[in-house]
C-alpha cells in the first residue's frame, strides 16, 4: 500500500476514535451535571411526574451503556431523535444552524489568513524596524484580547457610531449582500486572535527561510527581493502554518459560541450553549457530534495536505521507531 494511502487510513481511524471518544466522554460528564430540563423550563410547575416524563422521552431513564449504544445506532442511520421541548427533529435543528457557524468559522479563517500572512510578511521584510516593532506589539495585543471583547468594541464602533454594519442575526436568507453584512463583524471578532498568531508565525518562518542558503544564492544571482519572497520564500514559510490551521478551525468553532451569543447570531455554538443551560442533553450530544465531526474532518484534511506537501511525513509512518 502506498505510504500516503496508509497514512490516510491511519488518520481516518484516529479521527473515528476521536469522535467516539468525545461522545463517550460527553455521556460520562452528563451523568455528573446536576439539574434537569423539566425543572429549568417549568420551574415550580415541574412535578416529579413531569420530570419523569421528560427523562423518559429523552432516554435518560435508560442505563448509560444503553444510551450510548442507542445514540450511535441512531446516529449511524442519521436519526438523532426528536427534541422533547419543541417536538422537532434534532437533525433538522442542527442542520438549520450549522451552515451559519461554518460560514462564520470559514470567514474568520479567511480573514485570519489574509491579514495574518500580510502582516507577517511586512514584519519579516523589515526586521527590527519600527513597523516590525509596532506589528509585534499589535500581534501580541490581538492574541491576548478575548474575541468577545473585540466583538463589543466592533459593535460600538461599526454598528452604533458609524451605522455601517448590523448588530444582530445572520441576515435574510437568499440575500447574499445582507448575509455578508451580518458576517463581517462576527468573523472579524473571531479572527482577530489568529491574525496576531499567524502574523508572528509567518514572520518567524519567513525570516528563517530568507536566511537559508538557496535564498542567499538567488539574491547573489540578482533575483529581485519581491520575486524571491512571493515565489519561493513564502511558499516554504507557509508550510508550518497549514498544520497550525487544523487547530485554528477547532479554536474558531469553540470561540464561535461567544461571538454568536454577542451578535445574537443563530449557530451551533448558541444552540449547544442554550441546550447546556437547559440541560437538554440530546441536543447537546447531537451538537457536539457535529462539532467534533467538523473538527476531526478539518484536522484530517490538514494532515493529508501536510503529507502531500511534505512526503516525509507519510513515509515516516513506515519507519521503525
Amino acid at each position, binding site marked *: 500500500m502506498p505510504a500516503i494511502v496508509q497514512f490516510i487510513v491511519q488518520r481516518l481511524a484516529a479521527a473515528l476514535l476521536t469522535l467516539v471518544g468525545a461522545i463517550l466522554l460527553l455521556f460520562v460528564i452528563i451523568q455528573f451535571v446536576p439539574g434537569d430540563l423539566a425543572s429549568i423550563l417549568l420551574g415550580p410547575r415541574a412535578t416529579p411526574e413531569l420530570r419523569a416524563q421528560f427523562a423518559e422521552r429523552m432516554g435518560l431513564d435508560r442505563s448509560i451503556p444503553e444510551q450510548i449504544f442507542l445514540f450511535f445506532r441512531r446516529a449511524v442511520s442519521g436519526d438523532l431523535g426528536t427534541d422533547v*421541548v419543541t417536538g422537532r427533529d434534532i437533525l433538522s435543528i442542527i442542520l438549520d444552524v450549522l451552515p451559519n457557524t461554518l460560514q462564520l468559522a470559514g470567514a474568520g479563517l479567511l480573514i485570519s489568513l489574509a491579514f495574518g500572512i500580510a502582516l507577517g510578511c511586512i514584519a519579516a521584510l523589515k526586521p527590527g524596524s519600527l513597523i516590525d516593532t509596532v506589528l509585534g506589539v499589535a500581534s501580541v495585543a490581538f492574541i491576548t484580547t478575548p474575541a468577545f471583547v473585540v466583538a463589543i468594541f466592533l459593535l460600538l464602533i461599526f454598528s452604533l457610531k458609524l451605522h455601517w454594519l448590523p448588530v444582530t442575526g445572520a441576515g435574510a436568507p437568499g440575500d447574499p449582500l445582507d448575509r455578508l453584512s451580518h458576517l463581517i463583524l462576527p468573523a472579524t471578532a473571531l479572527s482577530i486572535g489568529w491574525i496576531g498568531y499567524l502574523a508572528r508565525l509567518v514572520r518567524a518562518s519567513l525570516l528563517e527561510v530568507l536566511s537559508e542558503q538557496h535564498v542567499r544564492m538567488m539574491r547573489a544571482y540578482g533575483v529581485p527581493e519581491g520575486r524571491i519572497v512571493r515565489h519561493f520564500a513564502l511558499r516554504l514559510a507557509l508550510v508550518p502554518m497549514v498544520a497550525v490551521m487544523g487547530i485554528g478551525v477547532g479554536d474558531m468553532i469553540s470561540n464561535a459560541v461567544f461571538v454568536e451569543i454577542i451578535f445574537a447570531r443563530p449557530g451551533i455554538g448558541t444552540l449547544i450553549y442554550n441546550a447546556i443551560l437547559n440541560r437538554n442533553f440530546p441536543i447537546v450530544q447531537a451538537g457536539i457530534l457535529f462539532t467534533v465531526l467538523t473538527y476531526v474532518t478539518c484536522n484530517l484534511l490538514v494532515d493529508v495536505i501536510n503529507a502531500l506537501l511534505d512526503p516525509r511525513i507519510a513515509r515516516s509512518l513506515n519507519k521503525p521507531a
Partner: protein
Amino acid sequence: MATDFSRRTLMQAAAALPLLGMASQIAFGAEGEVIARIETDLKNLDPANRVGSIEDNILQATTQTLARFKPNSLEWEPDAAKTISQVSETEIDFELNPGQMFSDGYGELTADDVKFSLERFLPDAQGNKPAYADDWGALDYVEVTGKYTGKIILKNPAPALWVIGICDSSGTILSKKATTELGGKISTKVVGSGPYVLKEWKPNEHVILEANPDYKGNAPAQLKRIILKPISEWQTALLAFQAKEVTFTEVEPTAVTEVEQDPNSAVIKIDGIDYEWIGVNVEKAPLDDSKVRQAIRYGIDVDAIIAGAWSGTVSRAKTLLAPQLLGHWADAPVYQYDPEKAKALLAEAGVSDLKVTLTCLNDARTQAEAQIVQANLAEAGVTVTINALDGGAYWGMGEGDKSKDLELTIIPYSSKFDPSFQTQWFVSSQVGVWNWQRWKNAEFDKLHSEAASITDEDERARKYVRMQQLLDESASCIWITHGVHNFAHAKSVTPALLPNGVNWQLRYFKSA
C-alpha cells in the same frame, strides 16, 4: 484566471462597507411593522405545555380566549365569547360570536372547540397531567349546550380562574380538528382565530406574526407584521435597539438613562409583582432556632442590596404579595439593618462563630447581592460562604428533597395576578419540592386552601394578610424586591403590557 487585488480594489471594498450596512438597515423599520426582542427562542406553543411568557405572548396574539384583558389592564372583556358570566360559584355560562374562523382552513370556532381546549388540562386516563393543569384544577367538565353555547362546570369555587385560566393562555381556544390532526406538532404550530397568524418561525432567528386577514373579532391587528428576534444578551439587545434594529425591548434598569437620551426613544417602567427573597432553612441547625433567623434578618441590609446590586432602581419588598395584588399586607414591618441587634440575638440563642452557606444563581446581579449579604453578616459575626450555581443546578434543588441541605438561599420567583399562585409554594406539601425554607404551618396551609376557593374578595384579602403575618413570624423569608420591568421602545410604536410587565399584549401594539 488571475485576480489582481490592488490597493485601489481594497479601498473600493472598504468604501462599500457602509453601503452593506445601509442595505441591511433599509430592511428594518418598515411602516406598520414592529421588531421586538425576545430573550429566548420559542419552545412549546401548546397552551397546556407552554414554557414561558414568550409563548404566552404569541398565543394571546394568534388565538382567542373566551374573555381577554383590556390593553394595559387586568380588567377583562369578552373575546371569542359574545357573552360570558359567572352564574354561580361553580358555573360559568358562555355564548360565542358566530363566524369566527380558525386559520389554515380549519373552519369555524364552536363550543365543541372550547370544550376540547379546556378539558385538555384535565388528567388523562393514565393520570398524566400537562404542565399547566393546575390553572384549570377546579374544572370538572365543559357542557356544550349548542353550537355556540356552553357551560363551564367547576368542582369548587375558583376565584383565580378568571385571571389565571379564562383570560390567560391557559384559556386559549384551539381548533379541535387541527389539534387532533397535528398531534405533537401542536408545539410548533398555532392554528388560532386571533388577530395575528404565526407566519414563520425560523428557530433562533425570528418569529413573524402577520395580521390575520380572516379575523372576525372586535379587536383586529393594528400592525401588518410583528417580528420577534431572540437576543439573549441584554447588552446586545440594548445595542440593537440603539442601532434601530429592534423597536421594542426590555432593558436593564441601569440602561434607562442611556435610552432616554435618544429623542426618538421612550421608556415604560412597570413595577413588578414578582418576588425575590432570602430563604432560611428552618430545619437546619442552628437556623432551626427562631432567634438565629431573626438575627440573620437584622444582619442583612436589604436597602444596601437594592442600592448596590440593583443600582437603586427598584423598591424594597416588605412582604410576599406586591402592592398591586389582592391581599397585600400594607402594614408589614420593615426590618432595618442592625448588626448589634443581630449579635445580641445570636448571643441570646447561645450561638457563636456561626458559619452558613448562601446558595444563589450565578448571574452578575444575584452574585452582587450575595456579596453584600456576606459583608453585612460578617459585621454580625456570621461567616457566609457563597455557593453560586447555574440555572440548571440551582433549579435542580426542587427535585428529590435536595433542598434539605440548603441554609440561606436567594430565590427569585415570578408571579401571576392571583395571590394563590404566590402562596402555593410556601405550603407544607411543597417541602422537599419548592418550599426551600422547609417551614410548615398548619394554619398557613388551611388559609391557603380556604382562600383559593372563596369568592368574597375582602375575606380573601384578610386570609392572605394573615398568611403573610405567619410567614413574617417564622422569620424564614427576608424579602428583597418585587422587581421592575423597563421597556425601551421607539416613539413610533405604542406597546401594550399587562401590569406584571411580563405579558406583552402584542395584539394591541400599534403605530404611534
